[in-house]
């Protein structure tokens, strides 16, 4: 799939000594969509990290003035400190959205990290060792790819209790297969290189070669794929939370908030759906644009 620039010594010479990474960085910063995505992501992250400081209410506090009359009094207003309005129980939606964004981002990043680590090690091992081991490992991936993971993950969540740890780990463990395929393909092309041969000739062991020589050269692919994986993780988590099977009260995530908002739109409290949805969409847009930008920047095909 994507071949990274640093694998190609020829390009560095043409670019008059500019490093391939600097080259990629320049291309990335010129890409308007990617820069837009980056700005979005920075804004959303700042909101998640520091939004709590602006909030006049905590995420668990019930506003008894509003409770019971949410439709009339719960609308977004600066005057009573509920910038995004309140939910049907009278909790401040601004504080809840900040918390939901934090959890969604965390699940996305941690899930993607798990998927990346497992997928990279698995794929690099299969590709480097090759032969029958490779055949077996990849056949296993083929088999695992055909499993409807959302169902298995829900099965796990129900059986072992709906803890956030299982959600984090489960979301990551269901998506390492694509990564392992990509990494294996790249490793196959890397392992014939002279420096790998040299390392092998000097007696370096296979695990060390994989960690020191193969994996660092895959960083470009990994970076691209990681950025595109985070929004998928957020989608998965939101999906499960939307069904009420994900994070549990008093914790919340964007998916859980969207679910609450979707359940109450019939009463006319549209803001309860609108604000979480806005942040959900902005976050996904940000990651998709940055991911696409990175792919364009690191893919020498488009030079």
């Amino acid at each position, binding site marked *: 799939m994507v071949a990274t620039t640093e694998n190609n010594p020829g390009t560095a010479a043409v670019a008059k000594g500019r490093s391939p990474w600097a080259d990629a960085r320049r291309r990335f910063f010129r890409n308007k969509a990617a820069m837009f995505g980056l700005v979005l992501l920075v804004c959303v992250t700042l909101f998640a990290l520091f939004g709590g400081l602006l909030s006049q209410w905590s995420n668990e506090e019930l506003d008894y003035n509003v409770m019971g009359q949410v439709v009339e009094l719960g609308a977004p207003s600066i005057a009573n400190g509920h910038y995004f309005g309140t939910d049907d129980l009278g909790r401040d939606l601004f504080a809840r959205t900040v918390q939901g964004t934090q959890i969604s981002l965390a699940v996305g990043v941690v899930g993607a990290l798990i998927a990346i680590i497992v997928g990279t090690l698995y794929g690099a091992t299969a590709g480097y060792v090759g032969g029958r081991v490779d055949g077996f490992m990849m*056949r296993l991936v*083929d*088999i695992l790819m*055909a*499993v*409807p*993971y*959302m*169902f*298995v993950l*829900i*099965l*796990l*969540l*129900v*059986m*072992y209790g709906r803890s956030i740890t299982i959600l984090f780990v489960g979301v990551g463990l269901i998506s390492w297969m694509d990564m392992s395929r990509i990494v294996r393909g790249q490793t196959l092309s890397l392992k014939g290189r002279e420096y790998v041969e040299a390392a092998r000739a000097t007696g370096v062991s296979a695990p060390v070669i994989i960690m020191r020589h193969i994996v660092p050269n895959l960083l470009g692919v990994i970076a691209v794929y990681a950025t595109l994986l985070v929004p998928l993780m957020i*989608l998965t988590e*939101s*999906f499960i939370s*939307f*069904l*009420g*099977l994900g994070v549990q009260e008093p914790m919340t995530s964007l*998916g859980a908030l*969207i*679910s609450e*908002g*979707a359940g109450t*739109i*019939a009463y006319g409290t*549209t803001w309860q*759906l609108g604000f979480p*949805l806005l942040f*959900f*969409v902005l976050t*996904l*847009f940000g990651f*998709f644009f940055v991911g696409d930008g990175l792919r364009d920047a690191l893919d020498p095909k488009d030079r």
Partner: protein
Amino acid sequence: MLSYTLKRIAIAIPTLLVLIVVSFVLMHAAPGGPFTAERQLPPEVLANLNAKYGLDQPLWRQIVTYVWNIVSAFDFGPSFVYKDRTVNQIIAQGFPITLTYGLLSFAVAVIAGVSLGVVAAIRHNSAVDYAAVGVSIGAQVLPNFVMAPILVLVFTLWLGWLPGGGWQGPEYWIMPVIALSTSFMASIARITRSSMLEVLTSNHIRTARAKGLPERRVILRHALKPAMLPVISYLGPAFVAMITGSVVVDIYFSTGGIGKAFVDSALNRDYAVMMGVTILVGALTIAFNLVVDILYGWIDPKIRY
């Protein structure tokens, strides 16, 4: 071609067995049995219950019985929660509904997506192209659980055109199908567009044009088939994601498909129904992937195993 097909089938069967065994083992490794959830039962009653459902047998024998019942009689056993219903009955009730809107959504996603992608590629860098790209980027962030409440808000609450939920006639199908198909339509459109653009620059298209074939014929006869390859390989994952999305549709639109049965059984800890649905969905997925693989081998003569 035949040996290729047979090889694919030979992979599909163990895959399904692995799925059954894994979900079975997961179920048994879970802390607490299906009957420990609510109040404490006297140990004698618990033993009787376990005996009735065969849970007192050694694990391997339970697995063998379970697999054998499925393979020989397509019998998923009794529900652990509803005494008078079997898993088969629960699935049979919801499955036709899921199948109806699932197939409709799939057809809409493929037909609309491919058409949009082809038109965008033919009119590359025109307003149509930009509109198609815009729609497909926008729809990426509109998965089913986002589309569903928005649709209800607009078409049921604001405009009052469509019923907000239920399953009684074709007007009840519209919103589930739109909610389920939008993001896949967008992905298919994007994949079709980029693959079509690539195919249109290839040699055989230049030859076809040089022969003086009308553009229509060049596109439909010569470009479309090779351009479909990446789309076809996307159909497998899309199918899985759509089945998964049907859970949201069932819950949000109260359509009563198997997704509803799955979530209800998840909340009731009715392991038998959960496993039944998981295995059924897995079997469908595997069967579908098999069809996709064979289709792929048929379209691309370079694939030889």
